[in-house]
């Protein structure tokens, strides 16, 4: 395990130095929260089942963070590390290859969690955010969603021949999901035929699971989401562990 701690700390520093990554994970969701919070406030409405705009936005924007970290961040970082020969340089040391994988996951997990924490703090401080769930289940839902999507990001990085391809594939998957999964725009205000498309998008299940746990629904009502996310996790991990290339 020698070097793992140092690698993780260094990766955190590098993340914060990357303006676009830090912006999409930390700043952009907060800006959205303040924008829609200032327009609609956080009064309970029947449209959102008795919750306010900010209440439903916090779990939804958390899904947005997980999506952007997984699809805009991970594929590009890993593919760049490979294409530029950075992975090769690490491999010429006694560092275990798993350390690189684990440090990425820890950093991306930590940054996503930080992004969510900022939303919760801002929501509580400014809009009197409601929370009716069980912290443990929310954490579990967050972890499942994050790991599932991260593994998909690694899969893209493993399969893409170049950084450009990894970046393009990530964006092509992310942007439609951002708008159609309920992550940026609540599903409740989307028309029925668009919502049918939403059901084909994995990020929709992250939004549903996180929202459900946030408002204290039982996990039993979310077995479909759980199965889909666990399926993505298992399949992506299995494939990338076979096809991952160091150079």
């Amino acid at each position: 395990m020698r070097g793992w701690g140092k690698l993780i700390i260094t990766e955190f520093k590098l993340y914060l130095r990357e303006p676009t990554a830090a912006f999409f994970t930390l700043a952009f969701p907060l800006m959205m929260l303040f924008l829609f919070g200032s327009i609609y406030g956080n009064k309970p409405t029947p449209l959102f089942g008795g919750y306010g705009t900010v209440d439903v936005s916090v779990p939804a924007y958390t899904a947005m963070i997980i999506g952007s970290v997984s699809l805009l961040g991970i594929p590009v970082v890993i593919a760049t590390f490979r294409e530029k020969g950075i992975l090769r340089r690490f491999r010429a040391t006694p560092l275990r290859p798993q350390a690189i994988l684990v440090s990425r996951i820890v950093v991306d997990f930590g940054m996503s969690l930080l992004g969510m924490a900022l939303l919760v703090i801002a929501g509580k401080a400014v809009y009197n955010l409601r929370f009716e769930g069980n912290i443990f289940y929310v954490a579990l839902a967050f972890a499942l969603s994050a790991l599932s999507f991260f593994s998909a990001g690694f899969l893209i990085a493993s399969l893409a021949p170049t950084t450009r391809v990894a970046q393009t594939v990530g964006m092509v998957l992310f942007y439609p999901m951002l708008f159609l999964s309920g992550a940026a725009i609540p599903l409740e205000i989307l028309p029925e035929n668009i919502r049918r498309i939403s059901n084909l998008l994995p990020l929709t299940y992250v939004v549903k699971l996180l929202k459900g746990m946030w408002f204290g629904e039982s996990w039993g009502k979310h077995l479909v989401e759980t199965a889909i996310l666990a399926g993505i996790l298992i399949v992506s991990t299995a494939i990338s562990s076979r096809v991952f290339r160091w150079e």
Partner: protein
Amino acid sequence: MATVVQVQNLRKVYGSVVAVDGISFEVQEGEIFGMVGPNGAGKTTTIECIEGLRIPDSGSISVLGLDPQRDGYELRERIGVQLQESALPHRLKVGEAIDLFASFYRRSLPRKERDELLEFLGLADRRKVPFAKLSGGQKQRLFIALALINDPDIVFLDELTTGLDPQGRRAMWDMIRGIRERGKTVFLTTHFMEEAERLCDRVLIIDHGKIVALDSPENLIRNLGAETRVVFTVDGAIPAEKLQAVEGVRRVEQIGERVIVYGEGDALVGNVVNALTASGIRFRDLRTEQPTLEDVFLALTGREMRD
């Protein structure tokens, strides 16, 4: 002296390309050992098989008594590696890179010696500079620093002066000699014959994956029997017979004002100059051209080394 690298019948094939074609050699402790050859000769393939980064198709390799495939992690604790092509994250700073890589090893240089290393490599004032903002030569020197950070027994340097100007290249040679003086074995590759000749104790010339020659640069040149040339300019004719009779001279050519004396032996220039002076001949622009490893390569392969 102990043998630190032992390679036997190493062979590596990529598709229809035989990159390394059954080569065997040994490297002794404390020497600067160089592999020279044109592009695609198989240098990188060989060195990376020895480092355990590529898997040979057949043959056996032992480095410090370790098998690079089976004992890869243990081996990499004890060797330093500079790859022909690699990079670091572009926002990682020089000082951070040093500390990060130092943390990967069981034993690495203590802080004071890391500072000395950066000083030695002329990077002391670059500590806060991110990788992407370094010049080519600075990147190269940072990679050398990373190759030395674990105080390795053997340092592998693949094309360390590519991309450097002649001045930077000379500075790098001095640095490599300094590394050897610290008791390390240096294993390097280059496609600059001059670099091999000036720097290496022994040179392995490789072409098309096969060993063409392996010896000290002096021996390679001497055994080739290549001629030294003494070139000068005179007004009018020279007494060719007199020069011909000088010890070591093989033949004399005159084209207009220009005279070329072909011969051998360290005393050749002195003898020629003495003979000219004794005959009262006034000469200008005298220089000697020594045979080089380029000539050795040409003689052994029938081709010029191309850069």
